[in-house]
C-alpha cells in the first residue's frame, strides 16, 4: 500500500470507555491520515467495536477526545457523519424491506442527494443488483455483509469505517472485499479504517495498523515495517535431530536455536538467513523435511488472541 500523507482524518486522544467496573477502552491514542488504509487489529473483546461505536457517536466516551476531519466529533457530529460511511459489527437491516428500499431510506437521511441510479450502482458494485427487490430477511449473512458495504459507500464518503467486513464471507467474497478496499484507497483516494481480528487480512490491505488488547494499544506503526522488523521463528523438521544439533553446536546458529521437540528445531532468525541455514544443514548431511516460518508479530498476536479467548 502507498504511504500516507500528513493530513489527519481521525485523531483519537486519550480515549477511554468504562462500563461500570469494566474498562473497555483505556487511554487509546490513534492517528489516521488521509488515504490510509488503517488496520485496527485485536482479538475478540479487545475494545475494537467499542472504539468504532465511539467514532460513530453511538457510544459516549468516558474521557478523551475524537477529532474527525479536524473537527470535534461530538460538537460537529452532523457535518462529520455526512462524510462517513460505516459498517458496525454484523450487518443488520430492516428485514421486511427490500435491499433497494433499505438503501433508499438511508439515502434520504444521508444529507446528500442520492439518485436511484446511484443506489443501483452500489448494489452492482457489491454484486447484489440482481436481488435488489428481494426482502433482506431472505439474504444470507454474506449477502447482508455486502449490503452493509453498499450502504457504507452509498453517499460516497471520504472516510469509510469497516468493522470486520469479511466476517461470514466465503474465501472468494473475502478476496473481493479486500480488492474493493484496495480500489477505494488507491483509485478513489478514500481513507479506510478497517477493524479486524485477522492479521493476514490487515496485512493484505493496510498501510498502517495498530494492535489493541484489553482496550489498550500494544503495537502501532507502518504495516511493512512492523512485519519486516519482526524476526521469524522458523521451525526446521529434520530426520535426525541429535545429528543436526551436533552439526550446529559450534556455529553461530546454536545461539539462536530455541528449545527442540521431537524431530524439530526452532530458530529465531532474520528471514534472509533461512536459506543459508537450510543449505548448511543439507551440506552437512542433515535431511530437512519441512521449514515452517512464524513471524514474531504473528506469534504475539496469536498469544494475545489465545489469552482473550
Amino acid at each position, binding site marked *: 500500500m502507498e504511504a500516507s500523507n500528513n493530513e489527519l482524518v481521525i485523531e483519537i486522544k486519550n480515549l477511554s470507555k468504562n462500563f461500570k467496573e469494566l474498562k473497555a477502552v483505556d487511554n487509546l491514542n490513534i492517528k489516521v491520515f488521509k488515504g490510509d488504509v488503517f488496520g485496527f487489529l485485536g482479538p475478540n473483546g479487545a475494545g475494537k467495536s467499542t472504539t468504532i*461505536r465511539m467514532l460513530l457517536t*453511538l*457510544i459516549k466516551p468516558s474521557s478523551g477526545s475524537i477529532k474527525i476531519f479536524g473537527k470535534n466529533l461530538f460538537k460537529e*457530529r*452532523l457535518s462529520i457523519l455526512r462524510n462517513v460511511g*460505516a459498517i458496525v*459489527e454484523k450487518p443488520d437491516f430492516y428485514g*421486511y424491506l427490500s435491499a433497494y428500499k433499505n438503501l433508499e*431510506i438511508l439515502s434520504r*437521511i444521508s444529507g446528500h442527494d442520492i439518485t436511484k441510479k446511484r443506489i443501483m450502482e452500489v448494489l452492482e458494485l457489491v454484486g447484489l443488483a440482481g436481488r435488489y427487490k428481494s426482502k433482506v430477511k431472505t439474504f444470507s449473512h454474506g449477502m447482508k455483509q455486502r449490503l452493509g458495504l453498499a450502504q457504507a459507500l452509498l453517499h460516497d464518503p471520504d472516510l469509510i469505517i469497516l468493522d470486520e467486513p469479511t466476517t461470514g464471507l466465503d474465501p472468494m467474497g473475502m478476496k473481493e472485499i479486500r480488492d474493493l478496499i484496495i480500489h477505494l484507497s488507491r483509485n478513489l483516494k478514500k481513507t479506510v479504517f478497517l477493524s479486524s481480528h485477522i492479521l493476514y487480512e490487515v496485512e493484505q490491505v493496510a498501510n498502517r495498523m495498530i494492535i489493541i488488547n484489553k482496550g489498550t494499544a500494544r503495537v502501532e506503526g507502518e504495516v511493512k515495517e512492523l512485519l519486516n522488523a519482526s524476526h521469524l521463528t522458523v521451525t526446521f523438521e529434520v530426520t535426525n535431530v541429535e545429528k543436526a544439533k551436533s552439526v550446529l553446536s559450534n556455529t553461530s546458529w546454536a545461539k539462536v536455536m530455541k528449545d527442540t521437540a521431537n524431530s524439530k528445531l526452532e530458530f529465531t532468525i532474520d528471514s534472509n538467513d533461512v536459506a543459508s541455514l537450510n543449505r548448511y544443514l543439507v551440506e552437512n548431511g542433515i535431511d530437512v523435511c519441512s521449514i515452517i516460518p512464524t513471524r514474531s508479530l504473528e506469534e504475539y498476536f496469536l498469544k494475545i488472541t489465545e489469552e482473550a479467548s
Partner: protein
Amino acid sequence: MITLVNIELYKIFKKWRTYIGFIAIGILVPIIHIAMVFEGKDTINFMTRNIQQSFVFVGNLLNTYLISYIVLTSLTVHIPFLITLVAGDLLAGEATAGTYRLMLTRPVTREKFVTAKFIAGVVYTNLLILWLALMSLVVGYFIFGVGELLIIRGDMVIIFEQKDVLWRFLLAYGFASLGMTVVASLAYLFSSLVENAIGPIVSTMAVIIVFVIISAINVDLLQSIRPYLFTNYISSWQLFFDDPIDMQEILKSAGVLVLHIVLFFGATLIIFKRKDILT
C-alpha cells in the same frame, strides 16, 4: 423532520403487526353489531329495567349511537393493548433488529429521530381510533340506522335527540385519541429503556391494569390516589355525554393527559439522548 416522519410511517405500515389492531377492531366491532342484531332488544330491556314502569320508550333506541357508545367504553383496557403493540416496538424494535446502528450513524440528531418516531406512533394511534369510529358509527349506521341515544349513568337516564348526538361522538373520539396518545407515550418511554418490544407492551398494560384496579376499589385511601392516575382521565370522553357539558372538567382532564404526554415524551428524549447504543 418530515422526511424522518415519512420514513417512520413507512416502516410502521410495512410491518404486519401494525395491522393486528385494525384487524382486531375490524372483527370485534362487527361481532358486537351482529350480537346486537339478535340480543339488542334484550340488552335495552335490561338497561331500562328499573325505569320501564315509569316511562314508555318509543322510537329506535337500538341504533348505531348506542352501540358506538358501548364500544367506546371498552377503550380503557382493550384498545391500549392494540396501541402498545406498535408504540412499544418503536424504539425497542430497532434495538432488537440492530438497526439503530444504521439510522444513528447518519447525520440525524437523536432528538429528531426520537421525535419523528413519536409523531409516527401518534399518527398510528389516531388512525386506530379513527378506524374504531368508522367501524362503530358507519357500519352501525348501515345495520341499525340512527336514532336517539339512551345513556344510563347511575340513577340518571339521559336521552339525547338524534341531531344532538353526532357532534358529541366526534368530540368524544377526539378526546379518546388524546387518552390513547398517553398510552402510546408511556409504551414509547418503556420502549426506550429496553431492547425487546415484549417488555414495553407488558409493562404498559400492567400499569394500566393496576391503575384501573386501584380506581375501581372503593376504599378511601385508594380513592385519594385516584386523581393522580392518568387512567382516571382517559374515560373523561364520557363527559361529552353529560347535559350540560362540564367544559371545565373536560379541560382539566385534557390538561392532565397532555401533561402526561409531555412528561413521558420528555423522559424518553432525555433517556435516549444519553443512551449508549450497544445492540
